[in-house]
C-alpha cells in the first residue's frame, strides 16, 4: 500500500464518521473568529437556542474594520457607524457565549492569521478553520487549515465538526535557492502564475522540496496564505525543526511533559516517501526574480523586468477577453514596461506580509532613503500588536517614519479597504496583500501585488524598480 501524504494523515486523523457517499464528518480543533463573517453565525446559534460545543476551541479578534490610525477612543470612536456596530457585535457575542477575544485595543489584537500562530493557538497536526479564505496560512505549521462560509462557522460553533469530503493531493516541489532580494512572496506569486487562479481548485497543496525546508515560518505562512489565489483551499508545509522552534514557548503551546509528547506526535507530520500525489508541479526557485502583478487576478503576474502582456500573443478567446478587460481597468497598455508604472500609494501589511520578517525586509530597503514626492501615502501596518511592539523594539518604526512612511496600528487595513484605508478611483498601489481584484482596495483602485521589499523600493522610486538594484547599491 502506498504511503500517506501529509494531507491524508491530517484528514484521516480527524474523521469522526466516514459516510458511504464519500462525505465525512471532520473534527475541528480550532476556530478563529473575526467580526465580518461571524455575526450571522452567532445569531443562528441564538435563534436555535444553541451554545458553542467547546468554548476553548475558539479564539476571536476584530481585524477587518478596525481603524489603523490612533484609536485610543476604543470601539465607540470608530467613525463609520456600520463598522462600529460590527466590531461591537463581535465583542458582545464573545461576551455572551464566553469566547476569548483579543479586543481592538488589547496588545495581542491583530489579523487573525497573524494572531493564531504567534499565540501558539495554531499548532501542528490540528484542524483550523475560520470564516476567511486566507485560513490556509495556518497550514504552514503542518496543520489542516482552510476557509469556510458563515453557515459553516455556525456549524463548527454548534458541533465542533464540519461536513466535508477529501480533496485531491498536489505537491509543489520547490528546488533551488531563492536569490538575494527574492522572497517567499515572489515565489508564491510565481507559483500562482504557473498554476493559474483555478489550477489548485479541488486540491490540498503541499509545498515541499529542499527550498521549503530552508524557508522561515513567516515565509511559509506567506506561501500557504496565497494557496487560495491558485484556487486551493488548503496549503501546507511539513513539520520540521523550524516549525518546532517557532511554536515552542508561545502562550497556548503545550508545556512541560505535554510539549515532549506533542513533539513526538508531530514528528510524523510529513508525507511518506512513497506517498502518491494526484499532481506534482516542479518549481525552480533559483530562476525566479522579483514579481509584480499587472492585472486584476493574481495569476496576472510577471517578473519586474518584463512587460505588460499583449493580448495579440494569446489564442484562447476567454483569456484575450480577460487581458483586454484588465488592461482597461488597470489603465495600462500592452507591452508597457513594468518599471514604467507610476504609483500613487504603497501598502505594506495584510495577513500575507505583516509579520516581523516582512517589517524587517521593508525597513532594510527604506533605511536612509526617502519616499518619492509623487507618492501620496505609504503606510506600514503591522499584523498584530505584538509584531508592532517587536518592530518598535528593533527601531524599525523610526526607520519607516524617517523615510516618510506612516507607521500604523494593526489590522487588515488596505488589503480590502473595509476600514478608512483605501484607494481612490484610478490610483495605482504597490501592495503586499494578496488580491488585485477590481475594486478590492477601493472602488476603481488599481492594485499591484509585490513583496514587502519591492513595495518599499517602489515607494522610494515612485515607480516599480527591481529591489535588487537598491540592495547592490
Amino acid at each position: 500500500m502506498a504511503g500517506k501524504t501529509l494531507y491524508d494523515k491530517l484528514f484521516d486523523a480527524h474523521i469522526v464518521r466516514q459516510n458511504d457517499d464519500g462525505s465525512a464528518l471532520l473534527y475541528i480543533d480550532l476556530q478563529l473568529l473575526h467580526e465580518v463573517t461571524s455575526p450571522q453565525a452567532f445569531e443562528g446559534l441564538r435563534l436555535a437556542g444553541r451554545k458553542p460545543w467547546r468554548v476553548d476551541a475558539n479564539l476571536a479578534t476584530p481585524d477587518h474594520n478596525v481603524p489603523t490610525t490612533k484609536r485610543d477612543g476604543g470601539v465607540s470612536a470608530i467613525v463609520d457607524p456600520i463598522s462600529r456596530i460590527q466590531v461591537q457585535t463581535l465583542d458582545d457575542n464573545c461576551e455572551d457565549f464566553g469566547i476569548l477575544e483579543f479586543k481592538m485595543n488589547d496588545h495581542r489584537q491583530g489579523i487573525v492569521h497573524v494572531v493564531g500562530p504567534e499565540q501558539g493557538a495554531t499548532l501542528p497536526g490540528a484542524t483550523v478553520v475560520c470564516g476567511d479564505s486566507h485560513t490556509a496560512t495556518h497550514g504552514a505549521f503542518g496543520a489542516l487549515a482552510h476557509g469556510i462560509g458563515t453557515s459553516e462557522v455556525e456549524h463548527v460553533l454548534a458541533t465542533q465538526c464540519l461536513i466535508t469530503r477529501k480533496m485531491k493531493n498536489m505537491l509543489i516541489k520547490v528546488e533551488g535557492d531563492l536569490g538575494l532580494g527574492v522572497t517567499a512572496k515572489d515565489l508564491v506569486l510565481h507559483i500562482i502564475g504557473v498554476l493559474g487562479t483555478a489550477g489548485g481548485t479541488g486540491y490540498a497543496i503541499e509545498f515541499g522540496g529542499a527550498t521549503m525546508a530552508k524557508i522561515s515560518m513567516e515565509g511559509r505562512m506567506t506561501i500557504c496564505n496565497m494557496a487560495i489565489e491558485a484556487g486551493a483551499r488548503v496549503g501546507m508545509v511539513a513539520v520540521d525543526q523550524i516549525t518546532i522552534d517557532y511554536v515552542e514557548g508561545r502562550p497556548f503551546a503545550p508545556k512541560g511533559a505535554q510539549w515532549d509528547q506533542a513533539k513526538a506526535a508531530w514528528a510524523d507530520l510529513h508525507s511518506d516517501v512513497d506517498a502518491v500525489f494526484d499532481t506534482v508541479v516542479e518549481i525552480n526557485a533559483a530562476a525566479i526574480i522579483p514579481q509584480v502583478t499587472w492585472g486584476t487576478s493574481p495569476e496576472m503576474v510577471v517578473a519586474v523586468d518584463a512587460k505588460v502582456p499583449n493580448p495579440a500573443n494569446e489564442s484562447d478567446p476567454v483569456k484575450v477577453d480577460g487581458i483586454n478587460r484588465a488592461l482597461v481597468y488597470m489603465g495600462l497598455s500592452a507591452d508597457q514596461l513594468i518599471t514604467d508604472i507610476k504609483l500613487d500609494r504603497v501598502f505594506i501589511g495584510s495577513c500575507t506580509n505583516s509579520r516581523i520578517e516582512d517589517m524587517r525586509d521593508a525597513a532594510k530597503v527604506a533605511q536612509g532613503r526617502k519616499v518619492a514626492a509623487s507618492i501620496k501615502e505609504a503606510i506600514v501596518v503591522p499584523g498584530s500588536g505584538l509584531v508592532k511592539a517587536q518592530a518598535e523594539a528593533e527601531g524599525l518604526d523610526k526607520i519607516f517614519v524617517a523615510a516618510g512612511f506612516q507607521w500604523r496600528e494593526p489590522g487588515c487595513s488596505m488589503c480590502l479597504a473595509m476600514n478608512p484605508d483605501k484607494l481612490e478611483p484610478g490610483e495605482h498601489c504597490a501592495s503586499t496583500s494578496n488580491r488585485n481584484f477590481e475594486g478590492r482596495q477601493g472602488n476603481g483602485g488599481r492594485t499591484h501585488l509585490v513583496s514587502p521589499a519591492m513595495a518599499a523600493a517602489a515607494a522610494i522610486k515612485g515607480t516599480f524598480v527591481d529591489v535588487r538594484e537598491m540592495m547592490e547599491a
Partner: protein
Amino acid sequence: MNKFIQHCGIVAPLDRANVDTDMIIPKQFLKSIKRSGFGVYLFDEIRYLDEGVADQDCSNRPLNDDFILNQPRYVQSSVLLARVNFGCGSSREHAPWALEDFGFKSVIAPSFADIFYNNCFKNGLLPVVLSEKIVEQLFSECAATEGYELKVDLERQVVVTPSGEEFAFEVEAFRKHCLINGLDDIDLTMQSVDDIKAYEAKRKGEAPWLFGAIKGN
C-alpha cells in the same frame, strides 16, 4: 433552508471568466450583521455608475446600462449563466446571500471555486457544472432568444433547454438530499452527537494539549 427541487426561469448571461466574490458583493456591504438585504448590492461596482455605500437606498442610483441585470430582458432572471472559476477569492457567504436575495435560484458554469460552491448549498442556491462546450452553446442560445429560459431539475440532475434538449450534471448525493428536503446541516450533525463525543474522548487522550489551553472569558 429553502428547498430546491426544480426551477425554471429566465437566464442572465454573465460573459466573463474568474468572477470573484469581491465583484459579486463588494467589501463595504460585508459590514452588515444581517443575512438578508444584499440583493440590491449584487455586482454593485459593475451594476451602478457611482460608488455604493452600505445601507444605501439604491432606487435612485445611476445604472450601468451595459450590465446585463440592468437590461429589461434580464431583469426578471433567476438562472445565472457564467464562465470558468465563478466565485473565486474571498470565502464571504454574502456572495450566495446576494445572488439568492436578488432572485437567483441556480448558477450554471463550467467550474466554480470550492468555497463558493460549498456556500451555495447552504442557502438553497444550486450551482450546476456543465462542460465549457455546453455552456458556450447556452450562451449562444440565450443571446439569440429574448426571454430564454432554462429548467434546472435537481431530482433528475438535468438542465433542460426550451427545445427539450437535456444536459446531465453531477451533484453529491448528500448535498442533493439536503437541498431537496431543505435540511439543516446542524440538525443532521446533531444526530451524531455520540460519535462526536467518542472521537473527542479519544482525541483528548492522544493530543491533550489541544484542550483547555485557550480559556474562554
